[in-house]
């Protein structure tokens, strides 16, 4: 069984993020991690490998050379092969292009099972997995919380629905996106870390992939353009209500609500 895991490198939640002066892009401190939900995807692939015969896990990302770090992390955890789909410096903001590239890579290599995180924690789009499955014309289930291979052709998955859970049987090949709670991602062993440090990362120019050309994936192909980024508006300062007794404080509060906030 060939498993593909798609991962994304995202800014660390503690990284400093600054808006450029034109507000059209952001500058991120050099602190990156594997996307939170993608860790579950890698872990599920490794656990599946432990249950089926002749299984190989490939991991891929679409990004810059810097993104090889997340590929190495996946190898340290237990993935076998890593592919960087090099964005050649273009930071395309259009998810459909990313999905096209990943799908084209999956088609070129041929996989029985594809795992993605349910969404990236930076753009929160939550649409790459679904779009990939559509381009590949394979079934997909989002945000799964349990996964089992029934046989070479079928998998059984559980996902949360309002007030309960849904259990589905899905024909393979298929794509699943992973939700928090499906597993506990492992901490790599030092042997995995050493393997990852030496691992060869296969670098692919997406324009060379099946059914793709440069014009289909560069900036000119994007139908979305960022007009501006805005920071959240600052929270108003907290006003402490003065008063020696609770009664005085309540009275002061009512006065403020009436006179200043005009809420009463």
């Amino acid at each position, binding site marked *: 069984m060939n498993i593909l895991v798609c991962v994304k490198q995202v800014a660390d939640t503690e990284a400093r993020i600054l808006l450029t002066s034109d507000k059209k892009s952001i500058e991120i401190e050099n602190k990156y991690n594997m996307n939170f939900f993608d860790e579950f995807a890698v872990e599920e692939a490794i656990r599946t490998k432990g249950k089926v015969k002749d299984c190989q896990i490939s991991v891929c990302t679409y990004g810059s050379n810097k993104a*090889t770090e997340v590929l190495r992390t996946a190898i*340290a955890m237990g993935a076998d092969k890593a592919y960087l789909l090099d964005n050649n410096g273009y930071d395309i903001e259009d998810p459909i292009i990313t999905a096209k590239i990943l799908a084209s890579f999956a088609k070129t290599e041929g996989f029985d099972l594809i795992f993605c995180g349910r969404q990236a924690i930076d753009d929160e789009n939550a649409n790459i997995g679904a779009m990939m499955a559509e381009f590949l014309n394979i079934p997909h289930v989002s945000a799964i919380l349990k996964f089992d291979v029934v046989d070479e052709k079928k998998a059984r998955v559980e996902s949360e629905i309002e007030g309960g859970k849904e259990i589905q049987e899905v024909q393979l090949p298929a794509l699943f996106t992973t939700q928090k709670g499906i597993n506990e991602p492992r*901490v790599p062993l*030092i042997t995995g870390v050493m393997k990852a*440090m030496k691992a060869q990362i296969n670098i692919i120019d997406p324009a060379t992939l099946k059914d793709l050309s440069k014009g289909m994936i560069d900036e000119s192909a994007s139908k979305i353009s960022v007009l501006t980024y805005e920071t959240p508006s600052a929270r108003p300062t907290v006003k402490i209500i003065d008063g020696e007794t609770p009664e005085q404080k309540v009275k002061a509060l009512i006065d403020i609500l009436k006179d200043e906030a005009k809420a009463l």
Partner: protein
Amino acid sequence: MDFKLTEEQEFFRKTIIDTIDKIVVPKSQEIDEKDEFPWETWKEFTSLGYLGLRYPEEIGGMNADKIMSMIFYEEIARGSVGFAQSVIMNILMGTYFIYRFGNDAIKERCLLPAMRGEKIATMCFTEDQSGSDLGATRTTAVKDGDGWRINGTKMWITNGPICNFCTVLATTDPSKGLKGLNFFLVEKGTPGFSSGQIIHKLGCRGTVTGELVFDDVWVPDENFLGDELGKGVYYVGDILDEVRLMTGAMALGIAKGAYKEALEFSKKRIAFGQPIGNYQLIREKIADIDTSMNAARLMINYGAWLLENGMDCRVTAAEAKMYATEVCLKVVDELTRIYGANAFAYEYIPQRYFRDARFLLYGGGTHEVLKDFIGRMIIGKI
């Protein structure tokens, strides 16, 4: 001149940060409060294989270079310096002489289980009247048949009360001073070998530190760890630079943890209507912390680079240890000022960093001894 970490080193740095964040950091406050050896955390962490950090891959190690080792020491100390002490004792001092001089049976019995975390190692230098002054060592080893009979008491032994084996420094000829010093392996269960008083420390809690007693302990000749008699002090020299750089890296680890707390607090603490990080006096503190920590890290990395390339780093290692530790003390002090009164409460983290930092003044040589050494090396014989 290239200051950039290699891709491998950078990946290792990131991985060890994540690992410490997941396994050690969540336990750090509990380790400090309980002041008991954290067996569960030990088992979880050592199962990952990091205790073989500096040993060859052929025997299950990682063969990490010295820069990577310093990254490791810094990060594990950032997590919990008490826990770090126990881990680093197994990685470096507690197994160094076993790896270098132990025969195959000893390596099989002691080194390999210590690399897997199944056995706890330590090294015994200090006595009640000798620390940096190794020439004052009073523990003796006297030839007795096909072995050696050891008598003496060692103090301030990290992992001592829970160790499975120790490398003990003893004099085989007190009349020769430093040239009479040698190392011996003593394993738990050997008649006459016992642990004495446990030391209750101000900081670095969670690691068990105490006294080891050698009362007519007999060990076979194979437990003599060396090429020839009287060279023990030279072997100490071989490991001392690495120990000093390691101590400096640990200091940097505590400072890094404290710096993060200070930075976060200065952004979120509101005083007079705005975050205190907007005030110049707080910004000055942050600027000083950042500058001095960067300088300390450069010194440690330079020392590690010298060591990795087989170059003399005696002065650099001593300077780096001393400077990084002084920087650490300054950073934890500034944290307690930025944090205000809560820094004085056990419920908050700053007091732990403040207490932990003090230990590094003594490990790897007091600064009074180091300054004398550095000055002597620079001025030379007059």
